[in-house]
C-alpha cells in the first residue's frame, strides 16, 4: 500500500504505524463536559468496524512523524487519501452527513 501523507507525499505503508479506526472524536474531558463512564468506555473500546470505506489513524513514524487519518477501503485495500489528524475532525464536523474519502 502507498499512503499519500499530506506532508511528505506518496510514501510506502511500511513507514507508517497503524493505530486503529478513527470512528469518533475523543470525548471532551474537563469541566462540565466530563464524559460519562459509558461515553468514555464506548470511545475507547467499541467500534462499528464497518467493512468497506473506513477512516484509520496512522503515525508516519519513519517520516515526518505526523498523525494522519487515512481514508481507505478495508475490502479492497484501496487508499483514497489522507488528512492530518489535527484537521480531520474539524473537517468531518463541517460535513456531518458525508462519508469522507469518497
Amino acid at each position, binding site marked *: 500500500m502507498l499512503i499519500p501523507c499530506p506532508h511528505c507525499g506518496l510514501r510506502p505503508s511500511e513507514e507508517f504505524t497503524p493505530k486503529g479506526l478513527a470512528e469518533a472524536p475523543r470525548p471532551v474531558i474537563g469541566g462540565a463536559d466530563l464524559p460519562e463512564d459509558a461515553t468514555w*468506555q464506548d470511545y*475507547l473500546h467499541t467500534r462499528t*468496524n464497518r*467493512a468497506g470505506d473506513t477512516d484509520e489513524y496512522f503515525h508516519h513514524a519513519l517520516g515526518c512523524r505526523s498523525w494522519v487519518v487515512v481514508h481507505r477501503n478495508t475490502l*479492497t*485495500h484501496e487508499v483514497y487519501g489522507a488528512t492530518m489528524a489535527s484537521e480531520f475532525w474539524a473537517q468531518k464536523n463541517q460535513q456531518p452527513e458525508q462519508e469522507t474519502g469518497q
Partner: protein
Amino acid sequence: MRYSALRILMEGLTGNKGWTPTWRDAEPKAEYDVVIVGGGGHGLATAYYLAKVYGITNVAVVEKGWIGGGNVGRNTTIIRSNYMLPGNEPFYEFSMKLWENLEQDFNYNAMVSQRGVLNLYHSDGQRDAYARRGNAMRMYGVDAELLDQDAVRSLYPTLNYDNARFPIQGGLYQARGGTVRHDAVAWGYAKGASEHGVDIIQNCEVTGMDIAGGAITGVQTSRGTIRAKKVAVCVAGSSSKVMSLAGLRLPIESHVLQAFVSEAMKPIIPGVITYGAGHFYLSQSDKGGLVFGGDIDGYNSYAQRGNLPVIEDVCEGGMSLMPSLGRAKVVRSWGGIMDMSMDGSPFIDRTSVDGLYFNGGWCYGGFKATPASGYCYAHLLARDEPHHVATEYRLDRFMRGAMIDEKGVGAQPNLH
C-alpha cells in the same frame, strides 16, 4: 457411519461401495430451538456439544459458504494451553483436554499430534517472563518446562545458536501442545453434530435478524426466514458485520493475518517453535511443508489477503531463527480475517437482545480454542449461564475494568 480400522479393511475387500457421506447436507426448516450462525469450527463444535452433552438437537447451523471454508481452514493448526491469566488458562486447558480425546469422541481422524510447543527466549528478562508464565501454568495443573540452551539444541539442532543477533538462551516447552489437521476438525464436528440430528445448512447467508420487543424471533437468510428461540452468532472475522444486523457494536476491529507454507521436505521440525526476538512461528505439516506465520498486517482489513511488507518481516524472522530456511521456496501464502478484540481475549456471552448470543473476538487464537469454545457456548445456550471456565469472557468486562490482557498493551487491538 462409524469409522474404524475394521471398517476400512471390510470396505477394501468389498470395493469401497459402502461409504456414505460423512454428514448430512440439510435443507432449512421453518423453525429451530437454536440457530447457530456460522459453520466454522466453533459453530459446528457448538452444535455438536449442544446435541451430545446438553441434549438440544433441534438445532441448525447456517453457513454463508461451505463448512470449514473460513478461518478453521485458514489457520496454522497449532494447539497449546500456555496462557498465564486466570480468565484464560483454565479455559485453554479445558480445550487441550478436549483435544486429547477428540478423535475418539467424535469418531473422526483429526490427526491430533501432541508434538510439543516451544517458545524460545533470547534474554534474561524474557527467561524470567517465561518462568513466570510456566509457573502460572503449573499452578493450573498444566505441563510447562523451562529448557536451557542445551535442551533446546538437542530438540532443534538446526536453529541459529552461535551467530544470531539475539542468541537463543532457552525456551518454555509445553510437550502436550502440538498440531491438528484443521479441516478434519470441521468435518469431524459436522459428522458428530449431524449424527445427533443437527441440520447443517450451507450457502445460507444471514441477511437480517428478526427482533420483536427486545427479543430475537429468528433470522432472515438467503434461503428464507428461519424462526428460532435462540440465535447463536459464531462468525469470528465477520462478527461486527453480523452483529450490526441486530444493531449491536462490538469491542472488535477486523485485521488480516497471513500464513505461509514452503515446499515439502524431509522432517526437520519435529514440533512447533516460536521465535522470541521477533514474531515468527514454525511447524512442519505431515506432508512435509513448513507452515509458518507472524504478525497481523496491522491495519484494519476485511480482505482475505495481506501485503508484502509483512511477508518480508515474517521471512526475515524465519531467516534469523533458522538460516537454512532460506533454501526452501515459499509455495503458498494466504490471509484470514481476525476479530481483534480490545484486550486480546474472546467473548462468549449473552447480548442486550434476549435470545441472541455472541461468540467471537478470538484474535488469532481461535483454532486451539475450538473444542472449549463450542462446549462453553453450548453450555451458555443450554443453561443461560456461563460455563465455569468461561466466566470472564463477558462483553461488559471493559466497563467493569476486568480486561484479560495477556500482553498488557491496553485497548490497542492490532498489538494483541
